[in-house]
């Protein structure tokens, strides 16, 4: 009998074991919507990485026409400017391309930070309970009492203008949603029979958290992470639009503020303010689509 066992091939080695344990951390490829979201991300990542190659101009460069006049408010196609130019003579298409960089940078770091803080807080509060739980959850209550956008505005006004202000503000406040949800998930997991079985089998708290709790909580972190990407990008856009953004970096929010302040609306320069908004929608909804994919991993609905 033992021969048949040893000869039987089983996935061995560290990699296979990790994959078995953490199989939950997979991309939601079963859901068409989530796949679309992932494709959109690939598109933006390529755009951000190859921005210098794709963009025909420096986004901050003030351009002139062949007659040496300021290339201001040119409509798309004029003089080869794909999306036209701004009132100050900058190439809109190049700004769009470079905008992908700050969007992704802010979105991904903020999502990572929020998911990380939220997961740690949620797991600690949920698993250990007691005072740790009380303190952390009261903190979450307070964070829920802070109006987020006003908080970012004040923070951005006081700190040096930087794209990281949004990330800092999110790290300070927005962990609350993730933290609460992961806490309640951890609470139910902690009382699952198989987690109690691990305790009876003599596993330490750390081992239980790493082997039994974390793999079941991580899809939730990813779910909230992919929503946080959107929040971060939207917040950055709002802040830039209100004039508290980083003047040195080109972001889609900054473009919108520029357009708004330059009377683009009354001039009917749709080519200027429509594309940045459209791209924001695209990248943020891509995050939502992916989060729905994780939702289905976590809470599979039978009749769908």
């Amino acid at each position: 009998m033992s021969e048949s066992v040893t000869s039987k091939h089983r996935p061995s080695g560290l990699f296979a074991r990790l994959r078995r344990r953490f199989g939950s951390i997979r991309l939601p490829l079963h859901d068409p919507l989530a796949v679309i979201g992932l494709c959109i991300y690939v598109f933006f990542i390529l755009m951000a990485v190859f921005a210098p190659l794709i963009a025909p101009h420096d986004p901050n460069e003030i351009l002139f026409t062949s007659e040496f006049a300021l290339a201001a408010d040119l409509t798309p196609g004029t003089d080869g400017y794909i999306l036209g130019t701004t009132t100050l003579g900058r190439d809109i298409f190049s700004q769009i391309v470079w905008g992908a960089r700050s969007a992704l940078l802010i979105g991904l770091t903020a999502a990572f930070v929020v998911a990380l803080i939220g997961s740690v807080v949620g797991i600690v509060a949920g698993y250990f309970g007691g005072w740790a739980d009380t303190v952390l959850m009261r903190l979450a209550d307070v964070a829920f009492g802070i109006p987020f956008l006003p908080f970012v505005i004040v923070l951005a006004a006081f700190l040096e203008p930087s794209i990281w202000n949004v990330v800092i503000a999110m790290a300070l406040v927005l962990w609350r949603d993730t933290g609460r949800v992961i806490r309640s998930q951890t609470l139910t997991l902690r009382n699952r029979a198989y987690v109690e079985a691990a305790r009876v089998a003599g596993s330490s708290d750390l081992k239980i958290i790493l082997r039994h709790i974390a793999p079941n909580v991580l899809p939730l972190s990813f779910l909230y992470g992919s929503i946080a990407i959107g929040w971060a990008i939207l917040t950055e856009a709002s802040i830039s639009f209100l004039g508290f953004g980083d003047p040195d970096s080109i972001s889609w929010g900054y473009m919108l503020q520029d357009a708004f302040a330059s009377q683009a609306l009354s001039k009917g320069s749709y080519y200027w303010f429509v594309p940045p908004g459209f791209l924001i929608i695209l990248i943020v909804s891509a995050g939502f689509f992916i989060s729905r994919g994780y939702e289905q991993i976590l809470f599979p609905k039978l009749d769908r």
Partner: protein
Amino acid sequence: MKAITVIGARLLQTAFVLLAVITILFFMFRLMPGSPLAAYIDPNFTPEQQAELMARFGLDQPLWRQYLIYLGNLLQGDLGESFFYRQPVAERVLALLPNTLILTFSSLILAYVFGVLAGAYLAWKRGSVVEQICVPLVLTTRAMPEFWLGMLLLAVFSFGMGWFPAGGTRPPGAEYDSLWALYSSADFWWHMTLPVMTLAIYSQGLPLLLMRSNMMDVMREDFVTMARIKGLSTFSVVIRHAARNALLPVMTSFAIAVGYQIQGNVVVETVFSWPGLGRELVRAVSTADYPLAQGAFLMIAVVVILMNLVADLLYAALDPRVTHE
């Protein structure tokens, strides 16, 4: 009784959160780099004049004492004086609050009426083509920057078609005797249409998706199956049992949404030059009018915190499982 204990506990928690937020707010404004009076002080002021000013605003006191004074003043309804308007902050903020609230509530009521109906409909149509198109579409509206949507509406309906005014609450030069006269004027509603539409389009996604997923969950519950086995009409099954249960969390989400909306108003009010708390906050921060900024922030925070409280109490009031424990 039990219900009173629950409410009492919740009130205590709210008071704690409020105090914590006030404290954070105070220290945030005091500990930030730069003199809080930078905007107020004329470079030509003598050091004596500056010191006098510092004393007038209590800034020469140690920090803890300033904090206590601040708390004491708050209790008396004194939020300080605006540097810019030279007028009590409380007065200014309270004058703007109704504008913000009216915008928030009318857009949310619109959003919830539409969202609940559409959500229930999509749940009913689950698996259909309509649903498969609508759900991603709704997600997309949640992904829109609100101010951008406002810009788009402005460009099309105001600058393009000329149907609606570009901003404010009244035509230039128009004066009204009272707030009530203003709010009941057709002009006011005409001015409000675009900002309300902007907020409503953005907000409808939440109740819609919530209602839809709740409905789908409830329709799977045993008691809905039982209602069918009892031979009740489809109307009874769907409305009396499924929708009634699915609506519970949606109703409580309304209060939460008010809190969210009021923070989001900041940008939309700016786009439409709507004289509300949000726009005032932005202006105050840009002009370094700290007392006013602090006051506006506090007012928004109070609404957020109160709405979180209302959400909890509403939940307890609507769900017999909580009420009759």
